[in-house]
């Protein structure tokens, strides 16, 4: 009864407030409804499993028997005793630190070549994207393995030129670079992001600078590159995060072994072998958390360094 008096005393604002509260409550329930699949997934397939995997990483667990508590022993073994783990780190770092820069340089170079109202841009962009479109498939990884094999396409071409080349995928010195090459080959999606970044740069800058007598190289260094740094930064972060997790190509090219001599034993491949070939699920969980920490660390470093080299036109707001 109280509020009917209140309504009569102060009709407009309170009634409005009340309908807003009702509308908000209705929206709250609706939000719960619409978010329910995601919420269930978040709890059952993401947060729950994360907690479980953190726990399992502190245990010895083989699926068949209940987990037995080890404390930090898995982590200690990883960094102190497991030579293969250190090898897989080395392989993964080689892969990430060679393939990511090469891929971005290539993507930027081709984007610059295609930019500036070149005729047939649409067709070229399509053609250059095809490797990115198909490259993740097992079919292309198998083709790569056959192509770089002892009597594969590459060596046949080299033979015509009078060069006797080794079996690239069976040679521990070169095998990882065949995977790097496969990754760089798929520069298309980074290139498309660069192209759309280049399109945003106003032509006025170039006109003004050429009036001032700046050459092409000077324009690239002082205009294009600084304006493009946020796009480079974005591509860099995305590529680093995905490259650390690369699996399929190394699996197919080494036929699941990580060989020859573990030279293609990428982190994910080693984790897969530990978890699903040897069923050391606790150990594999510890590896997963180390991977998360590594990716987090490198992403953080890239973000940290960005203050020094990424230039935002709006002053970094």
């Amino acid at each position, binding site marked *: 009864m109280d509020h009917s008096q209140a309504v009569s005393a102060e009709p407009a604002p309170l009634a409005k407030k009340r309908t807003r509260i009702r509308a908000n409550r*209705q929206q709250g329930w609706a*939000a719960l409804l619409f*978010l329910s699949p995601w919420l269930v997934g*978040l709890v059952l*397939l993401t947060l729950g499993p994360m907690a479980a995997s953190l726990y399992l990483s502190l245990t010895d667990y083989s699926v068949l028997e209940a987990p037995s508590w080890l404390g930090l022993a898995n982590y200690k073994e990883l960094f102190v005793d497991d030579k293969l783990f250190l090898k897989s780190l080395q392989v993964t770092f080689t892969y990430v630190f060679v393939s990511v820069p090469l891929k971005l340089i290539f993507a930027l170079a081709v984007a610059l070549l295609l930019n500036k109202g070149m005729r047939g841009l649409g067709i070229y962009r399509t053609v250059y994207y095809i490797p990115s479109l198909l490259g*993740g*498939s097992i079919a292309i990884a198998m083709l790569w393995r056959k192509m770089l094999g002892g009597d594969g396409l590459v060596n*046949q071409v080299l033979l015509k030129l009078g060069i006797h080349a080794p079996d690239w995928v069976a040679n521990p010195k070169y095998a990882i670079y065949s995977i790097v090459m496969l990754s760089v080959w798929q520069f298309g999606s980074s290139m498309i992001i660069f192209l759309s970044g280049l399109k945003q740069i106003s032509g006025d800058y170039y006109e003004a600078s050429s009036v001032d007598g700046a050459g092409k190289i000077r324009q690239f260094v002082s205009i294009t590159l600084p304006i493009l740094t946020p796009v480079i930064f974005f591509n860099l972060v995305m590529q680093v995060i995905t490259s650390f997790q690369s699996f399929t190509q190394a699996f197919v090219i080494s036929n699941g072994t990580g060989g020859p001599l573990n030279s293609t034993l990428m982190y*994910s491949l080693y984790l897969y072998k530990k978890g699903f070939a040897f069923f050391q699920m606790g150990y594999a969980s510890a590896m997963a958390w180390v991977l998360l920490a590594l990716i987090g660390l490198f992403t953080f470093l890239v973000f940290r360094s960005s203050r020094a080299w990424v230039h935002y036109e709006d002053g970094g707001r």
Partner: protein
Amino acid sequence: MTDSLRGTIWLKHAVTISIAFIMLYPVLWMVGSSFKPGYMIFSEIGLWPGQWVWSNYSSGWTGIQGQPFPLFLGNSLLVSAGAVLGNVISCSMAAYAFARLRFRFKAVAFALMLVTIMLPHHVTLIPQYILFNQLNWINSFLPLIAPKWLATDAFFIFLIVQFIRGLPRELDEAATIDGCGPVQIYWRIIIPLSVPALITTTIFTFLWTWDDFFSQLIYLSDVAKFTVPLGLRLFLDSSSQSDWGPMFAMSVLSLVPCFVIFIVCQKYFVEGIATSGLKG
């Protein structure tokens, strides 16, 4: 136009075409080789088959390890269709809530959603496997499809949120005045207007599921349940050189759906990648 300028333009085209040709050579060579008789595949580096045969396709189609290749195609289609439907429905629902509805802890929930995009799947992999094992789902398609119905590909939530934010709010307000609740606004206004974002979601979910190797490898063990990537790998295992032909033929076949979708929906690819950094 001066001669020297015309000259540089021609040079640019020549360089662009040469790079493209070298890049695509392996793929074109594989297509050509799939029509060559087995003995010619290692001896010919040219693209055009000196002798055309269809036998690679017919022998690949009859399959491997007692299972016909169309079975793998059917399995892959089934998994991909289930994943696409799941992603489109569950991600658009969550996206609508994040973009349009007011609720408590929205900022926290949204931040959580963004963080899960960046999360490497390895940290949830093993407990998920144990969970699906306890549900008796191993060696079925459920572990590959069910997570999509729970919007675990948060990337697409983000994509659709960004799209919905670009739609005029006046439409929602007009519908509210006409007595529509959130469910009707979602179904009658947001969904029809979000079709471009939903098509992007469909395309990339399809491609990623079609190409996905890791989850299919760990969850499927019975050859009769194998998808295209797992089926193709069987050709690689029997690595005697006479099998190159059928392997290449079925590889080419496995790439056809991706290629067709790409050609038909090019616009969505370029926009999807350029606006949100979707990896291809």
